[in-house]
């Protein structure tokens, strides 16, 4: 195939792209030490139609001190429908309590959602938690519970669904 033998702008573009892509790879350094990753606690409640999912994020350094001054962005996707139903990320605001941030996601439906917590600032990290968002009637606020394997497993005939 003369495509690969004859120099062309296309080949040059590919070569440039490959070089650009490889440069950071060649200079890649060792993985980050463990001590830099913050400890994360995520608690979410759902309410209203949509539904809305209000999340509280508590960040601590490894030594237990609250992680302040971070920029926290919340996002979400449905694992069973990747690249569809990707909701708009929201920036979580500091609540005033050290290391605590709060943001509200507008979901499209109930079910299992993977909530992403993207942290930049003093440290850069990204965590994901699978939560089950339950239906919540009226003005009630219902806690979104961590998804267990049974929630994520494909349905099996005859298998009891435990909650």
């Amino acid at each position, binding site marked *: 195939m003369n495509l690969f033998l004859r120099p062309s702008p296309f080949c040059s573009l590919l070569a440039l792209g490959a070089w*650009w892509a490889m440069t950071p790879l060649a200079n890649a350094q060792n*993985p980050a030490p463990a001590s830099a990753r913050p400890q994360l606690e995520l608690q979410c409640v759902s309410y209203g139609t949509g539904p809305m999912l209000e999340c509280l994020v508590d960040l601590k350094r490894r030594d237990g001190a609250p992680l302040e001054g971070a920029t926290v962005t919340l996002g979400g996707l449905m694992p069973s429908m990747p690249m569809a139903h990707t909701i708009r990320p929201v920036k979580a605001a500091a609540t005033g309590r050290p290391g605590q941030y709060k943001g509200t996601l507008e979901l499209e439906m109930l079910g299992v959602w993977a909530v992403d917590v993207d942290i930049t600032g003093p440290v850069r990290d990204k965590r994901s938690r699978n939560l089950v968002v339950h239906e919540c009637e009226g003005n009630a606020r219902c806690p979104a519970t961590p998804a267990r394997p049974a929630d994520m497993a494909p349905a099996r005939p005859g298998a009891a669904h435990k909650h």
Partner: protein
Amino acid sequence: MSDRIHSSTGAATGADGAFAQAVRDALCHLPGLGGAAGTHAVGLASDMAIMSLLALSAYLMLLVGRVSFGQQAFFGLGAYASGVLSAMFQVPLGLALAAGAAFGALCSWLLALPTLRLSGLHYAVATLAFGEMARIALGWWHWQRPGEDGPVGPAGIEGFRDIRWLLENDVSPAQYLGLTLLVLLGVLVLLMRAERLRLGVGLRMVGQDDTLAAAQGIAVDRLRLFAAALAGGLAALGGGLYAHRTTYIEPAVFDPMLGVHAVGYALLGGLGTALGPLLGVMLDLGLLDASRLLPGWRMVIFGGLVALFLRWRPRGLLDETLVHRIATAWRLRRGTAGTPGLAPMPSPPNLSRRKTP
């Protein structure tokens, strides 16, 4: 570590590194890519580019007359393979992606061997069954190694977390989008160039009528195996890119709906050119999903569109006829009407595997 993570010069050294860093910085500071809206735009564009790779893999199979509902399996296998390499063995991203793509191509080729004689519905069901087998197998797969922050690796149905290559190497989402777009562009140009060669014409002939193609001496089985391997490799490449973008994968991600969507995008966008699947992705993810014009109705509209197209325009928006018309109009405008533009049909002996006297 903090210094390394936040220092933009930490990942590149020397003159070459400085230039590469400048390119990455330029991408990082593109207007409109800051804030939550910018994050959403970058995320959406990355998703569209990755989904386009999967749609292109479905398109390749459709090109040789195969409706595959199992491309999501290769997407998943590529995601796990490249994730294992980069997260558990610290293999550089490029190599991990390449190895994942090669693994996907190998698996797809192995699946194509016993299904060569199947056609139509039987082939579609076989690929769907393979996709489900692969997804369930990934749900059983536990293989973790101790990491700095606890065990890392596939944990069955709970998924595979902490695929952190991008975070550890200070690659921002905008930079990763640039890399993803570059990969997509490379694949697209390769496919569009290949379509103008004998290879591309041969693939289309096999897809249109394999009996006639075989009668003209075309190696139908060989071309189908090649197309299957290439399609598997493309899907796996998309999977690898997806795994590193989200840092987290689980078997539920590789649901049959993902494969159905990939086929839908190719059918909707058109089979006349490799740009067709991209158009399908843009229509669904870019227009229906991102715009939130009709929330809750997206799947209904998308499904309805596919059904309408199958009835009234079975080879999609950009079908061969429209592509030919556009190419002819383009040539006329450029004053090169006599020059063959789109894939000139080679004479049968050129495609033959038999030597002609």
